[in-house]
Structures are given as structure tokens and as C-alpha cells.
């Protein structure tokens, strides 16, 4: 990298020529980028799958999916700058990462080449250069997409942010949950380092990069504080006025092994993925670069209380169910039908479901939060997930909202004309062998349920 590459720009730099075409515009970073870009660019074209509201006049919203129909392609024009933020994140299968990151980038590159864009900025991830990408399909997909960008021949820059912090940061929310737990599990030795960058700083830097000239070398972007994971968790805890953290270092390899083995079948149930543990296995400090070292304005600290304020201790992965009292009648009726099917294998009448709605409103169960909410949400999916949730509740959460709801359904079934007989009917024959089988089935279900849910229970707490 030479000293004048990339060209340095300040906030007062001349406006970008042509339009800025932003993908992933509704995401965590995308929303901040849009807010800044509207003020700094002549014209912005924002691509997203979902709605975008309250857009300034110079922002054009194009609804579309990089992996879907090609209607969005015509929105890219000669001389535009592309800022490619969109990516599949969270819990997804390797195939989904492949589609959402590699395939999508390939299509965007093709469209950009056809239009003849001025600058293609690819927002990758520090994980793309992790040495240890074990069971981390997201990181492998990012690495692959970087190769495509470099091979495209387009004037391009690859950017690799580290952990992105700031209000609403999903990653920081996860760390915060760990940090505020009574005992904080740390996977591995906790000595790997990170340098979280504030989302507003990142958005500003991305716009500077986009407005500037392409860079041959990837730009790694981190925040002002470089610290170990142990230190990060301790600082998050301190920022919330809590006492010293009790860190519990857990062996990384076996946990990753178990998670990786379970993932194909049980991905939606798992609290975290093997891939997400890569942060604990790799140093995540950015390589120094001219852009950061020459920057006059200091980067924000991510530990200011206001930056963490909205990242309150909430369950990660958006598994929080709405409050019971706020559930609509339809949700409760569905819940009743699902639970009746589960308990007795019968479909309840509409009248019974309506009574259940009345019952639930009358009981006024306190709003389930944290682990209880997760349990309820799993249960509402019915099938295996309900069986696991019910079993777990029967051993380790006997006073949970879920169990109270199941009892409420059972009480209705045993007193209603169409179902009371079914509650009492013994199996036609072989009662003892059947009881034995049920015992074994319970042991198996309970074992699996505890294995999967107990760590979450510890992590999220009781209420």
C-alpha cells in the first residue's frame, strides 16, 4: 500500500459523482450509511428486500433481492459507485451463505461490469482472513466472494470491518448477554483480541472509501480500543455498573465439535453456531492502514453507556416472544390447537379454543421474557420442538409459563364434552410395555432437551 492510496477524504470532501448504489440498505450498517449518504451524495439508490421509510428526496428505493429476480440490475448506471453491504448473516446453512454471499456478489459484479461502474466497494468481514474458519461457512463465503471481487477486473476496494458496535448491534448484544450473566462463559482462553468499531464511524469511513479511489489491498477497519475478549467482557460488565465478571473458560474445540455435529438437524434450536465461536479462536485486530492512521477525527469509543444503552441485556438471536397479554386471539387459538394435539392427539373444537383465549386473558400470566419466552416460542412451533420444550419444562422449568399454559389446555380438555373421555381412556392393551416405552422416550427427549436448552437457560436466566 502506498501513502496516497486510497485517496484521503474528509467529511467536507466534494460530493460523489454519479449515484451511490447501496445494497443491504435496511441492515444494521446499511441504515447508518443511508442516513449519511443522503447528505453527501447527489443521488443514492438503495436496494433492499424490505420496506424503507422516511427516505430523503435524493434517495431512491429499489426493492429487490440479489438472489432473486433481476429487476434491480437496471438501477445501476454507468459511472455509479457500488457499496455492497448485503450478506446472509445469523443462523443459516452453508448453502444459504453460499447463495446469499457468493452467488449474490457474483451477480452484482456482473451487473456492475455491464453498467460500467466507477468503483465497486465490497464490505467483507475480518472473518474472511481468519486462519481458523472451522465450521464457519459465513467466513468461507466471504473469502470466496473476495476472490470473485478481485478477479472481476472492476475498479474495486475490499473492506473488512471487525466487530461492529453501537446501539442495536447484534454482535455486541450477544457479548453483553454473556457479560451480564451470573457466570460468563468464555470459549477458549479469552486472549484473542478484538477492536470493535462504532457503526457511525464505519458508515463514515465506508462513504470516504466509496468516494475515493479503488485500493488494491483490503482495508481492515477497527475501533480505537484493542482488547482481549476477557477484557471486552469485563468492560461491558463494568459499563453496566456490575461487579467483577466471573469468567468461566470453556474448552473451545469440543463445543465447536458438538455444535457443528448438531447444526444440520437442529440449527433453529441452537443458541449459537459453531461458526460464531470463530471470534474466540482468531485474533480480530485490523492491519494498520493509511486511511485509519491519517484520520484526523478520533474514532468513537464503543463503551460509552449511551452506545450500549439500547443493547440492553436481551436474548440474542431475536427469540424473544411477545407478551402473553399482548398475544392476539388468533395466536392463542393456534397455541391451544397445537397444545391439544400434542397432549392428546386430538384437534380441539373452536369453542374450546375460544375458552382457552378467555382463560389465558383471565389468568394474566406475567409476560414471558428471556428463557421462558424462548421456551414458549419453541413450543408454539409444535412437533419435535414442542416435545423438547415440554420435556424440558417438565424437568427443569416446572413453574414456567409454558407448563402453566399446557396445564390450562389439559384442564379444558378434561372437562369438555368432546374430549373428557379421551383424557381417561387407558391404552387398549399392553399398558405396561407402553408405559416402559414412554419412560424410555421421556428419558431420551429429556436428555436431548437438557443438552440443548440448559445452557440457554443458564445464559438467559429465569425471567
Amino acid at each position: 500500500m502506498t501513502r496516497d492510496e486510497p485517496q484521503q477524504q474528509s467529511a467536507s470532501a466534494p460530493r460523489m459523482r454519479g449515484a451511490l448504489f447501496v445494497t443491504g440498505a435496511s441492515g444494521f450498517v446499511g441504515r447508518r450509511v443511508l442516513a449519511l449518504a443522503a447528505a453527501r451524495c447527489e443521488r443514492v439508490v438503495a436496494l433492499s428486500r424490505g420496506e424503507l421509510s422516511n427516505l430523503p428526496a435524493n434517495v431512491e428505493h429499489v426493492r429487490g433481492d440479489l438472489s432473486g429476480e433481476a429487476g434491480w440490475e437496471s438501477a445501476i448506471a454507468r459511472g455509479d459507485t457500488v457499496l455492497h453491504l448485503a450478506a446472509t448473516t445469523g443462523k443459516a446453512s452453508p448453502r444459504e451463505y453460499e447463495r446469499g454471499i457468493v452467488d449474490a456478489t457474483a451477480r452484482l459484479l456482473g451487473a456492475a461490469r455491464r453498467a460500467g461502474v466507477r468503483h465497486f466497494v465490497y464490505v467483507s468481514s475480518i472473518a474472511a482472513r481468519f486462519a481458523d474458519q472451522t465450521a464457519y461457512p459465513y467466513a468461507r463465503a466471504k473469502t470466496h466472494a473476495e476472490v470473485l471481487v478481485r478477479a472481476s477486473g472492476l475498479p474495486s476496494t475490499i473492506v473488512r470491518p471487525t466487530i461492529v458496535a453501537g446501539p442495536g448491534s447484534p454482535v455486541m448484544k450477544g457479548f453483553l448477554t454473556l457479560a451480564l450473566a451470573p457466570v460468563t462463559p468464555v470459549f477458549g482462553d479469552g486472549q484473542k483480541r478484538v477492536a470493535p468499531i462504532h457503526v457511525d464511524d464505519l458508515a463514515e469511513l465506508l462513504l470516504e472509501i466509496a468516494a475515493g479511489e479503488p485500493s488494491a489491498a483490503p482495508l481492515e477497519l477497527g475501533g480505537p480500543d484493542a482488547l482481549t475478549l476477557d477484557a471486552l467482557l469485563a468492560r461491558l460488565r463494568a459499563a453496566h455498573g456490575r461487579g467483577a465478571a466471573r469468567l468461566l473458560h470453556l474448552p473451545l474445540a469440543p463445543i465447536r465439535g458438538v455444535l457443528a455435529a448438531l447444526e444440520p438437524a437442529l440449527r433453529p434450536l441452537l443458541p449459537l453456531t459453531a461458526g460464531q465461536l470463530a471470534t474466540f479462536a482468531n485474533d480480530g485486530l485490523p492491519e494498520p492502514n493509511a486511511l485509519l492512521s491519517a484520520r484526523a477525527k478520533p474514532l468513537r469509543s464503543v463503551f460509552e453507556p449511551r452506545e450500549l444503552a439500547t443493547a440492553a441485556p436481551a436474548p440474542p438471536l431475536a427469540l424473544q416472544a411477545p407478551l402473553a397479554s399482548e398475544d392476539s386471539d388468533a395466536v392463542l387459538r393456534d397455541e391451544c390447537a397445537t397444545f391439544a394435539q400434542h397432549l392428546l392427539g386430538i384437534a380441539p373444537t373452536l369453542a374450546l379454543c375460544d375458552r382457552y383465549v378467555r382463560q389465558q386473558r383471565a389468568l394474566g400470566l406475567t409476560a414471558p421474557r428471556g428463557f421462558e419466552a424462548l421456551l414458549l416460542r419453541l413450543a408454539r412451533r409444535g412437533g419435535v420442538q414442542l416435545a423438547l420444550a415440554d420435556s424440558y419444562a417438565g424437568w427443569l422449568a416446572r413453574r414456567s409459563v409454558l407448563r402453566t399454559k399446557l396445564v390450562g389446555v389439559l384442564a379444558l380438555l378434561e372437562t369438555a364434552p368432546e374430549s373428557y373421555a379421551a383424557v381417561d381412556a387407558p391404552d387398549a392393551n399392553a399398558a405396561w410395555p407402553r408405559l416402559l416405552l414412554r419412560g424410555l422416550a421421556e428419558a431420551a427427549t429429556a436428555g436431548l432437551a437438557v443438552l440443548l436448552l440448559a445452557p440457554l437457560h443458564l445464559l438467559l436466566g429465569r425471567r
Partner: protein
Amino acid sequence: MSRVVVIGAGPSGLHFAQTLLERGIAVTLVDAGRARAAAPRPELDLDGLKRELPDSTEYFLGRDWQALVRPDDSDEYYGLPPSKDYVFESVAGDAVRGEGFEPLFSYAAGGLAEAWTGGAYPFTEAELAAWPIDPRELHAAYGRVALRIGISGASDDDLQSVFPAHAGLLPPLPLDLHGQALLRSYQAKRERIRERDGVRLGYARIATLSRALGERPACHACGRCLWGCPSDAFYTPSVTLRECLRDARFEYRKGWLAARVEFDGSGRACGVALRSLDRAREESLPAVAVVLAAGALGSSRIVLESLAHAGRRVELSGLMDNRQVLMPFVNLRLVGKRFASASYQYHQLALAYEPGNPRDVAHGLFTTLKTALVHPIVHALPGSLARGTAVLRNIHAALGLLNVNFADERRETCRVGLERSASGASRLAIHYQPDAGEPARVANALRSLRRMLLRLGCVAPRPLTRWRPMGASVHYAGTLPMTRDGGPFSCDAEGRLRGLEGVWVADGAGFPTLPAKNLTFTLMANATRMAQRFEP
């Protein structure tokens, strides 16, 4: 004209009143008098109710879901049937604070016994040793009450020494299938169970008619006992109230609470200060004699309020109650069998546990749990609720509940007094402390009983055994005891309260001891005995 005023229409007050009426003495009975609603569709059996009531879930679970036993707020195995809510409904101003004691009160016509399970067990001579009365007199009264209300049971089985025979005993009801199985198993292993476990088993004594008595028909096994017998084959004191109401000399002052006894210049009781249930009106009812029968706690409250009104603050000690332990069990031979919900629901078999020390005697009642709601039992089982439901379907016929009662004795540490609550109102304060030996005594008994059940082919899982809190059995007694020597706030054998002239105590407050048995039958018999000797 001043009359004899009886306070409280529970088993004691009603049998006291009825006996006076039989003697030709006019009686005024003061009572809050909450009445039970008529049982719906008396011709239907239990399943019929579930099938045919327009909203069966509301009948069984209650308009406000009060019979729904939630896992997050209750340890009970029964939800109280909504049809019996009126028995425990409170009234304004009955504030109470219990320490080590969870008291229940009733303002129902018939009292707490409107929700009883019918166990009618005469005390033995040994159990009456500390009573200042002639046991023969009480036994004659047992017979007299039995002729009035109808009691079924055997007098020739292994329990005859524990349950003395008396007049008016009807043959036992036919046993349900589970009862038959238990009795057969017992007969096969009788010697071993008696010797090794110290247990004897036999027919229960129950206030349920096996033959018609007057207008009341014999039990026709509709299975609705718990939900309210629709035919009066099952006795509750409101039956006696109805009989009293036919007598022209009986005056029923319904809708009133007795606030306190009023005294004349010479210190003799001359009336009762009444308060309407809504506390809107007060009235003074003149009386030639005041008979307290508001229940041990209710009568204690009236005595304390009367003394407080005269500026005397005292505490009454010696409160007793039977500790109850519930042992659910499964009869392994009946797993997978069907059962008839149209069968008698309450206990039909009883047992006596008699280890060496008579103090340690326990009394057990077998209920075979056919028509109680099952959801409280299912959620007490370990594991998932779906599997619990499947398991219950197969063990329902095999399920039983042994309700074990333990004796109590008067102790200074168990007291009842008045105190001011934060709002300045007067409230009853109850302190109860079990004796130090109780845990070991109960644990020993439970060990023997569990072993005995195993010999009968029944498993009683230890985690499901529950000690109910003191106060739960509602066998309250002992705060104004009958004694020979005449200490303060005690009664003589006729129930005259010493220190308050013109006041009689006709209920459990007068019991000097509390054997392990249900006391209701003795409440009725003792009140009858006193009323026979009553001279105002």
C-alpha cells in the same frame, strides 16, 4: 322475650339447636348463612354433567377459573370445586393473620363441614381419657347423631377397636373396584401388615346413606360427591338446618355475624351484638344464654372481642389441628384398567396406624381418586405434560390417595389473640408451632405406611407425598378447653365457659385433646350431649 341464642350454623351449633328443640326449648340461631346453589341437573351422573351442561368447563373449572390448579402457584392435588366456593367465601372484617398456620373460615349455612368428606369417627375411651366427661354419655350421643344423619360402615372388621360401635350404624356402601382390590390384598397379608407395619385396615365410617333415611334417598353412586351431592344421600349440616327450620320454636337469624357477647350489670351474658354481613347495620339481640358454636377460631374471636370491649386483652392458648399428609399411590395391579366414574368418590376404606406409643397413632383415609380433576395430578408427575397425560390415562384406575391425619395436643405456644392491623382494624392473630418431635414422628409413620402400601401392591412415590400446612385440615380445636380443674377461659363438662357467666362453648374450642381422627362427628355428638344436659 329472651331466648337461648346459638351462634353459628355449623355441625356443633345445629346439633346443639336440634337437641334443644327435641327437648322443647326454643332456640334462636345466628348465622351468616351463605347458602349453596342447587346442584344442576340432579338426574345426571358425573360424565353426564360433562356431556350435557351447556358450559361444562365453567361448571368444573369455575367462572373465574378458580378450580384450575396452576403449577406456578399451588401444591394442592385438588382444585376446590367451584360449586363449593361459597363455603370458604370470606366476609368484610374477618381479617386474620396466621403464623405457622393457614386458617380457613366459613360463613356458609352448615359451616366448613359443607365441604367435608364425610368421615364420621367416634373417639375411643382411651382418646377421651383427658376429657372431664363420662365417655358413655358421649357414646350414647354418637348413636343419637347417627340415627339423625345416617352413618354407613362396618362394626365387625379389624377397625372395631379403633372405631367403637354405636347405635344407628348402616351397612357399608358397596366398595368400588379399587376399594375391593385393596381390601382383598389386605386380607391376604393381614397378619404381616398388622405385626410388621402396625397397621389395621377396614371399612371407613362415612355420613353417606347406604339406605334411605326419612326423605333422603340412599346413595346411587353418581360420582358427583366432590362436586356437590345432588341428592342429600351425603350428609352435610345444612340437612339438619332444614330439619330445624320445620320447628316453630326455631328462629333462624340469617345474614348476621355475632360481633361480641353483651353482659348485664351483674356480669352475666344478656345478649349478642350483631353486625350485618355488609357491616352496614348493628343490632342487639337479647339472650337468656349464649351458646358459642362459631368454630374454634370463630368462637375464640367472639370471646376475645367481648373481653376487648370490656378493656381486657388476653390470648387464648392451646390451638390444635390435625397435621395432614397426602400420599398419592399407584396400585400396580390396576395399571391399564378402566374405572367407573359413576362410583362413590370419597374414602370408603380407612386405616389405623398404631405403633408402640399411643401418642404416635395416625389415622388414614383411602380415596381412590376417580372424579377429581386430573390436571393437578398430571402436573405433579415428573417429565413432560404430554407424557404425564398418557401415563395418567393408564394409571387413573390404579390411582389412590392416602390422607394421613396425626393427633395434636394443647401447647402454650399455639395461641390466638387480637391485634391491630396496619389499617387500625382489629384482626385475629394466630401463632402455631408444632412440637419438636413432630417431624420424626410423622416420618416414622410415613415409612411404615409406605411399606404397608407396598405390601398391598401399591407404590407411593416419595416426592409426591405432601405435608399440608397446619390449618389445611380445618380440624381446629382446643382454645377454650373443657377441664376439671377450672383454669381461666376453660369450660366445664357441660360447656359453661368459666369467667363469662351465661356463655357456653359447644364447638371444637372445648376439645381438651385432638386425636388423629376427623373431629366432625364428635363435634355433633358432643354438642348433642351438652344440649341434653343444658340448663340456662
